[in-house]
């Protein structure tokens, strides 16, 4: 991780409004390659909206998002598709396609973007499922497995095309502490193994102090960033009482 490296993701002066209400205004930050980057903040602060803007599910009203220095917001349909291929996303509920089995879920992106023969795709899906600890569940449907397993299967799908960036929407939401910690370990493992850039939206304080390299904190009333930096430094140094209160809510002191 060198500071001079070109940022993997750059957000320039992004603003987003939904119908009449402004949700984000003047948000700028950059994410370095192979960094675990957290977007944190209380409920309704717009962190999920920011994530949806990053992955192109919403279009910013102003400003732009760049990946590897290339504009994603203003890209034409073809280069946009090329860029979409380079990142994976784990949705809050896993968002597996319920009419397909786990192996079909993971095979779908491979079938769409590669010309691999069927048996090779089968081997790759088995391998990806084993990576997230779901070996042997290939023929299960999403409705037949638990919430934590669905998230891991969703992660396996997000990793199917060996993405350079993986986005996580509230990975620990709805999981018990042990499962949540396992998922955190999996995130670190993916970064260490593949050098993947990780962007996580979360309000789980344990996760933030556990695995985040850097965080930005959003605030509802400011509609933008109120703190940026290493979680331990932000928790101690921030002049903003909201930041300190959020990060030390459970008495987890920076250390």
């Amino acid at each position: 991780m060198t500071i001079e490296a070109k940022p993997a993701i750059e957000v320039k002066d992004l603003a987003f409004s939904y119908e009449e209400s402004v949700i984000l205004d003047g948000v700028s930050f950059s994410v370095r390659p192979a960094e675990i980057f957290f977007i944190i903040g209380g409920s309704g602060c717009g962190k999920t909206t920011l994530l949806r803007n990053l992955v192109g599910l919403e279009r910013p009203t102003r400003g732009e998002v760049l990946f590897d220095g290339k504009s994603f917001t203003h890209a034409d349909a073809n280069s946009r598709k090329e860029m979409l291929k380079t990142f994976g996303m784990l949705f809050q509920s896993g968002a597996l396609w319920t009419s397909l089995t786990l192996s079909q879920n993971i095979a779908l992106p491979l079938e769409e973007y590669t010309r691999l023969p069927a048996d090779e795709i089968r081997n790759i899906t088995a391998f990806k499922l084993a990576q997230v600890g779901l070996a042997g569940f290939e023929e299960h449907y999403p409705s037949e497995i638990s919430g934590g397993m669905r998230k891991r299967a969703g992660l396996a799908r997000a990793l199917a095309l060996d993405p350079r960036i993986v986005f996580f929407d509230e990975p620990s939401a709805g999981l018990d502490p042990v499962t949540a910690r396992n998922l955190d370990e999996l995130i670190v493992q993916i970064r260490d193994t593949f050098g993947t850039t990780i962007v996580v939206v979360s309000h789980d304080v344990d996760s933030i102090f556990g695995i985040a390299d850097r965080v930005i904190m959003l605030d509802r009333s400011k509609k933008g960033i109120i703190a940026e930096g290493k979680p331990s430094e932000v928790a101690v140094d921030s002049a903003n009482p909201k930041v300190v209160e959020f990060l030390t809510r459970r008495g987890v002191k920076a250390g």
Partner: protein
Amino acid sequence: MPASPEMTGARATTRSEGSLLVVSLEGTWSLESSTPRWGTVAGSSKPTSVRLVADGVSVWDTSLIVFLGEALRWCAALGVPCDASPPPLTMRSLATQFESAIRTCGHEDHSRSLTVEVGLATRNVMDHVKNLLNFVGEFWIDSTRLIRGRAGLRWGDCLNEMQRCGAMALPIVSLISFLVGVTLAYSGSIVLKRFGGEIWVADLIGVAMTREMGALMAAITLAGRTGAAFAAEIGTMKGNEEIDALSTLGISPIRFLVMPRVLALGLMMPLLAMYANCLGILGGMAVSYATLDIPPAAYWVEMLTIVDMQDILVGVIKSVAFGLIVGLSGCLRGLQADRNAAGVGKAATSAVVTAILLIIVADAVFAVLFHAIGL
């Protein structure tokens, strides 16, 4: 809360000590029984100060807090000091909380002026039109890409849908179109009997089924059966973020979900319509044989004097259009669905209504068109 064995009704008695109004509260205060209201207790008295005494209250709940809160509010409105120190502390702080809650909740006027209503409605309609055009445009682009061989289609999904919307719909289409044939035969014979021309029932049913009813009945059945299913399925997928998952992978939901379904309906609808034609004619034949004594052979020969390939072609052309309409409305409403349970229900209903409306409109347009070109 303090509990007491004695269960007496709630009472509030007033006593004037000069210009001081003393209100003593007693008994059991419960939301389930009737309790005094401050307005009736205070009446039209105009004291210069009020004291509330709640020593005699045995059991109480929110009803007492409401009473005390109203008292505080009344005093505040008159500008008289209210001495609420005698009641226990919890009671008093709850009453203060109640009083400030009703003061700040504010019953705002949410009604809007006519101009605003008209403006919002117009914008709503324009959003709908924009959505529709976007959807049809994207569908058009994806279909041309498919035809030019620049994009693949998931044929497995398409075959699956064809089975679900085609083969599996056969029993219901059979029943409906057979009964339509029967109904047409009975109503036709009422008129034709007057002229002694019962045999023309065959012509009537032949033309009506092939040109009109076969395609229409198949389309309306599938609008209710398949169109609603498409909307509910896609709507549920949307609520479950499955559509978003497709988009973030750069897979167009139109190509992935809409295309196979619309194509399946466009291919199966003409087949179902022709099948419906046969069953309708069979229904007419059965009624003619049973009630009009027309032998099936005579019925068949008579029908062929008027029905030809042109009539069948008219029905088939229409049914292709109806198939596309049912498929597109189902998918469009599904993609537009709100992300909640009610949204899915609304999408399914709206898919059926949209499809049937458009089918009838298209049918009228076809009638004029075919008349103009003499088909």
